[in-house]
């Protein structure tokens, strides 16, 4: 298994390089780096100084090395709007986004898997049909529109929950989060549910398909032939088989959730990285955009690597096959 992990690690690093090349090429070669990295409000003299300072007059491959060197030390440019290092800005907002993303994932698992199993076990029941229709809706409704509707219903019409912003945070065991205060929770509910909805639908459908396929397998019949209680057949034999693909998808979705938080944060004015990104697009604050994209790419590669490692732990067939290689 270690061989497998090392190989994946090397692959990840290689991908990181490739992606950094792509972003670099996008910014320095295709786009106009002068526009992207130098504030449009600079005058001619400042501009020339900045060009020299950023090395934009150097040949392209040298620029790439400069770029890499700076990136590794965490210098990804300065925000036009805030005049602060871009990376620092983003990192400050990251906890809020992570909190939202994790809350959404937890919701997705806790709601999605049980509902999915129910519809897989009793596909004909009216409750199952309702859930399936609901899942199609959850899958098809554009997240941003759902967010709008949630605000409309729960904040404007019913007035139960606040419509924007993040609530108060509490600190437990060194972790600061909204979940530790009631106010924080009230602010977290709508955006987390909004973000989670698509994933809930996805997990319901995945779990259902997994259950239906697994139930047809011979080993389920065999387990019954051994005289096992139906409950054990479902919750041990069937569940373990479907959990592996479901959890893998979930792991991969984590990245998607973080990325997609862009939308939810915009609607609910949640102070995370995503809102920063959209604002940056609108203000043409390109250094922040570049920094965000690079950071996300790194995070993604890390998540994918972790998911692969997790998969090899969970599925004994993968573990043992690779031991022989």
């Amino acid at each position, binding site marked *: 298994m270690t061989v497998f992990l090392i190989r994946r690690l090397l692959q990840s690093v290689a*991908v990181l390089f*490739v992606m950094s090349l*792509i*972003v670099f090429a*996008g*910014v320095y070669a*295709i*786009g106009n780096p002068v526009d992207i990295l130098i504030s449009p409000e600079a005058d001619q003299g400042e501009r020339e100084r900045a060009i020299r300072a950023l090395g934009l007059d150097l040949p392209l491959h040298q620029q790439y090395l400069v770029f890499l060197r700076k990136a590794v030390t965490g210098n990804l440019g300065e925000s036009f709007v805030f005049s602060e290092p871009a990376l620092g800005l983003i990192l400050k907002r990251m906890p809020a986004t992570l909190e939202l993303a994790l809350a959404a994932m937890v919701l997705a698992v806790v709601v999605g898997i049980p509902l999915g199993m129910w519809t897989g076990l009793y596909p004909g029941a009216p409750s199952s049909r309702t859930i399936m*229709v609901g899942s*199609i*809706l959850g*899958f*098809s*409704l*554009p*997240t*941003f*529109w759902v967010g*709008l*509707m949630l*605000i*409309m219903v729960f*904040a*404007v019409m019913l007035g139960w929950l606040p*419509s924007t912003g993040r609530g108060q945070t509490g600190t437990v065991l060194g972790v600061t989060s909204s979940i530790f205060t009631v106010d924080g929770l009230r602010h977290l509910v709508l955006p987390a549910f909004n973000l989670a909805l698509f994933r809930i639908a996805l997990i319901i459908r995945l779990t259902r398909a997994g259950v*239906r*396929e697994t139930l*047809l*397998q*011979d080993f389920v*019949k065999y387990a019954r032939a051994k005289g096992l209680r139906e409950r054990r057949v479902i919750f041990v034999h069937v569940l373990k088989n479907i959990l592996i693909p479901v959890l893998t998808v979930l792991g*991969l979705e984590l*990245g*998607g959730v973080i*990325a*997609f938080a*862009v*939308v939810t944060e*915009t*609607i609910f004015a949640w102070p995370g990285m995503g809102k920063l*990104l*959209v604002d940056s*697009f*609108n203000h043409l604050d*390109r250094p922040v*955009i*570049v920094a965000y*994209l690079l950071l*996300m*790419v790194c995070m*993604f*590669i890390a998540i*994918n690597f972790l998911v692969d490692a997790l998969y090899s732990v969970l599925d004994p067939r993968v573990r043992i096959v690779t031991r022989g290689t």
Partner: protein
Amino acid sequence: MRVSGEIAIAPAVVAAEGESPFRRLVADFCESRLAVVGLVLFAAVAAVAILAPLVSPQNPYDLRQLNLLEGKQPPGSPSMAGFRFWLGSDDQGRDILSGIFYGLRISLGVGILSALIAFGIGILAGLTAAYFGGLLDSLIMRVVDIQLSFPAILIALILLAVLGQGVDKIIVALVTVQWAYYARTVRSSALVERHKEYVEAAHCLALSRGRILFRHLLPNCLPPVIVVVTVQVAHAIALEATLSFLGIGLPITSPSLGLLIANGFRYLLSGTYWISFFPGIALLIAIVAINLVGDQLRDVLNPRLQK
């Protein structure tokens, strides 16, 4: 291999009076009323989009037809030009219903066009990878894998940051996001089909490679790809709407449904809900319809669920 209770009804099921596979597909598909509803809905939406100028009470982009005084009228109010604002009007006096029809054109058009282009590229890539194998296969699949491990919205954001705004740039972004799914699906099917006898036979007949690929291999790989197409079209439409909503997508000169919804966002809290609400419903109907059809297609074409 599944052994449990094999009973000899297979011959009867497969060849009922020389029924063609397509006919059986249609019959299986129509077993789900929901799916048929989806198909009908989609046809309606597409018709409306294509015929927009003919069925809209107003052309919302013709400034001469607009009157600011008619702004923010609730649904059902009469207009001074003689028709009704069935779904209300926005802050500029534009009829929401007409806006939806025109917006559908753009949303559907962009979505379907990008899906088709991605489909073409993906199939080429997938077939090439499966047929030629070796280094080419590894290379193409590496790219596909890497791309698929990143969320679509991130890739779109990267591309749009680099390329800027515009309809063509959006289409490029959407195509880039989608082609990898097609490539992977086609390659998987093609790998299975490639080893089947009819390909051997075609080789023996010394048919040209191109002919083998496109006339023989491709049609047999299509069923799973068809399912992917429906899902992807829905995703493309939703993604475009999301990007437009965020202000990163289509420019104001090509107002898709996403943009309409974004316009109405600021009025939401004050109770003027219809500016965002109805375009959203229209978007929803289009996407749900496509997903319903795609769902049933997937169930019908899935070999593992056929007992």
